[in-house]
């Protein structure tokens, strides 16, 4: 008999060592998230995946699943508050979807749609953040960075490099690049690196590819992020199975 938790009234199984997010994904249940990707060590910073576990708020991506947990996710309050947290991310940076080449492939935008976000609600910060276009193939616009650290983790955990880090404190947090000059061109980042492709927003983009896929045919143009997310986690799982992991 495998162990189980209850998620929004549904009993789902989990294995020892799985987080609530792992268990939910395996059961085909989507919990909104931005800083999480099943392949990398969970970070727990965006707080979109906050669920209520036995009356307490926890990040589903980091909190271990434990026998008998009563987990609430799709409550009215949590959905509304996730929308507010998404709006915080929107006003903190400069997310101008119509002028962004990531539009339609952007997870931040897709989560916004999924949560029925119709305005930014909070006053915009309009931060003055840097663009680094020094690299021949990759460009970074920190205006669109949501500090999820997926690039940091992908570079370390998959590319075997350490190109990115998050520096600064509080609202002044920002990405830095591992080069003496501090410029992206002097790091060992290559366009084929996983880190160059993992950004959930348009902060890290590959040069000269922006409009290869026309608007209208992009990932989230016809599918909501919950479907895409579950399908991709399934694909990762299948791949792991094929490699005998």
């Amino acid at each position, binding site marked *: 008999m495998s162990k189980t938790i209850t998620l929004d009234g549904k009993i789902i199984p989990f294995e020892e060592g799985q987080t609530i997010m792992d268990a939910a994904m395996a059961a085909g249940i989507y919990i909104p998230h931005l800083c999480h990707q099943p392949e990398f060590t969970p970070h727990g910073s965006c707080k979109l995946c906050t669920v209520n576990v036995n009356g307490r*708020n926890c990040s589903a991506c980091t909190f271990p699943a434990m026998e008998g947990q009563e987990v609430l996710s799709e409550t009215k309050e949590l959905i509304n508050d996730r929308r507010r947290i998404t709006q915080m*991310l929107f006003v903190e940076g400069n997310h101008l979807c119509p002028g962004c080449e990531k539009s339609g492939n952007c997870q931040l935008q897709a989560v916004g749609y999924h949560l029925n976000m119709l305005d930014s609600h909070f006053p915009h910060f309009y931060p003055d953040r840097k663009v680094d276009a020094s690299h021949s193939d990759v460009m970074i616009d920190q205006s669109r960075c949501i500090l999820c650290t997926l690039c940091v983790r992908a570079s370390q955990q998959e590319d075997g490099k350490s190109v990115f880090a998050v520096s600064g404190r*509080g609202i002044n947090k920002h990405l830095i690049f591992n080069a003496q000059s501090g410029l992206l061109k002097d790091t060992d980042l290559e366009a084929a690196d996983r880190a160059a492709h993992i950004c959930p927003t348009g902060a890290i983009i590959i040069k000269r590819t922006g409009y290869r896929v026309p608007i209208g045919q992009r990932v989230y143009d016809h599918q909501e992020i919950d479907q895409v997310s579950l399908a991709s986690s399934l694909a990762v799982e299948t791949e792991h199975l094929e490699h005998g992991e």
Partner: protein
Amino acid sequence: MREFIQSVAENSQYQATHLLQILRQIQYRYHYIPHEAIEQLSALLNISRTQIISVVEFYSFFHLAPRGQYELLISDSITDHMLGKKELIDHLAKKLNVAIGEVRGDGVVSLDNTSCTGMCDQGPAGLVNGYALTRLDHAAIDKIAELVNQQKPLDEWPAELFQVDDNVYKSGLLLNQQIEQGSALRSTIKRGITETLWEIDKSGLRGRGGAGFKTAMKWQFCSEEQQPERYVVCNADEGEPGTFKDKVLLNSYADQVFEGMAICAAIIGAKQGFVYLRGEYLHLHDKLQSILDQRRQNGLLGNNILNAGLDFDIEIHLGAGAYICGEESALIESLEGKPGIPRNRPPYPVTHGYLGKPTVVNNVETFLAAASIAVNGGDWFAAIGTEKSKGTKILSISGDCARPGIYEYPFGITVRTILNDCGADDVLGVQVGGPSGTFISDQEFDRKLAFEDLATGGSFIIFNSSRNILDAVHNFTHFFAHESCGFCTPCRVGTSLLKKQIDKIVDGHGASGDIVALEELCRLVKNYSHCGLGQTAANPIITTLERYLDLYEKQLKDISFEPGFDLDGALETARRLANRDDVGAHLAQTVATGSVPAATFPPSMDGVSAGDCREQSWPPSLADGERT
């Protein structure tokens, strides 16, 4: 520079965990962390340059760009403000001819604000090159300006500028009977280590940092871990504005605190301990080192303590200006030489702490109490206090009272008794437990200090009826935004949004919907933040909104909406360019009841005939403009 950095790294045995200690020495010597130093350290310590940069940019006392040879910081705590800080820093800026936040052109001096330096009973306070300055007044400011302009070395500055007093006004169980050096360890060995844990359990001692976890339980959990390598950490990162009792305990009772750590080490089986001393208490560092040396000489620290086969030593780590490091997992990150970002829990430090090993983190006062309990037994301690809060609590009292300082009381004491003792009258309210605690009004002075009523880490700031509560709320809210580590969205963005929203209301730009917006924001920050900082950052607003809604409402304009955008402020550059400052060069953006509008928002259509208006909407769409 190369040689200096080489020697500093060598003295730290090239350990990356010593990164903050190394950077502190570089900052002290060069008044910034030069680029070359980062490159050199990266090679010497075998860590990435990005780790070093992220540490430099995280802690307030490190800088990538040069600060002055005299780095002057003035404490920005509400208690400093109550003692006239604003006027003093302006005076200092004028005397030194340097803007606040800037370095003077000749590079001699820089001036800035800093979070509470823990001198609330002897403020206004500051720091010069890390060393505490107290009781600043006009004469002291003039003297400092003169010394800086003469470029007098710090050791030639008059000692009274740096004088730090204990100001103990009321001693109880702990402060009355300082134990003899070594007596707690001897009692522990004599009684037996497990038996001593029982005594601590019997005493009912709970963590004195504020959260109140049972000390004996924490130590027992740690002792039961599989992993043999364990650590004891003393949290002396007393950063909660209005708290300064740990500074006094370390100044006058350090031996007993170290002894408490040694007993903990014996119980949990740790060989290494750390005191994480907040950077603001640099003035205590050398004294603490010499007490540690003395203990080593007396066989109370080091190998085979008291010939009982116990090995334990203590190292002091200084912080570098980050309130968040008072959170235990952030403190551990900082001890490891990283930015102080709270970890995801579980696992908890007691199973995965310093370097991933089982670690007990306790407050200075907890270790002090544990040492006393080891000598006097659990019953002695448990006889005092309330049912759920045994023993005494040491308070840091500041603000509007005749005798600000240190007071030790049995738990269960009423706020009213404390106010009488410290000479406070005409009291409007008290901030109990610092900004992250609770503001209580004059209707609640019969409430008791105890975990079951008003839990506190010891901060007790008194406000008399001449004070404006919103000034305190404003100060505290800015404090949290400044100190947020930035890890999670609700705290990083939310504390900055709270700051904007409070500024809007305090500056008189709030409209009726703004209180509702503020309440919603408070709820989001409180319920969704990653750690205690974010979860309590809205407390100053929440606790005062509950009690003084009318004060907030008085600030509001009698309109349903006002934009956060300051239309008139945005015209400032244009006014300067046009060299105009007449009435016509200003725009008021709202019509407040009772005031005469200079202009309205949306702009009124005065002078435009009704016929012209009919087709117009606000904002005018661009497309319409293009068609014409």
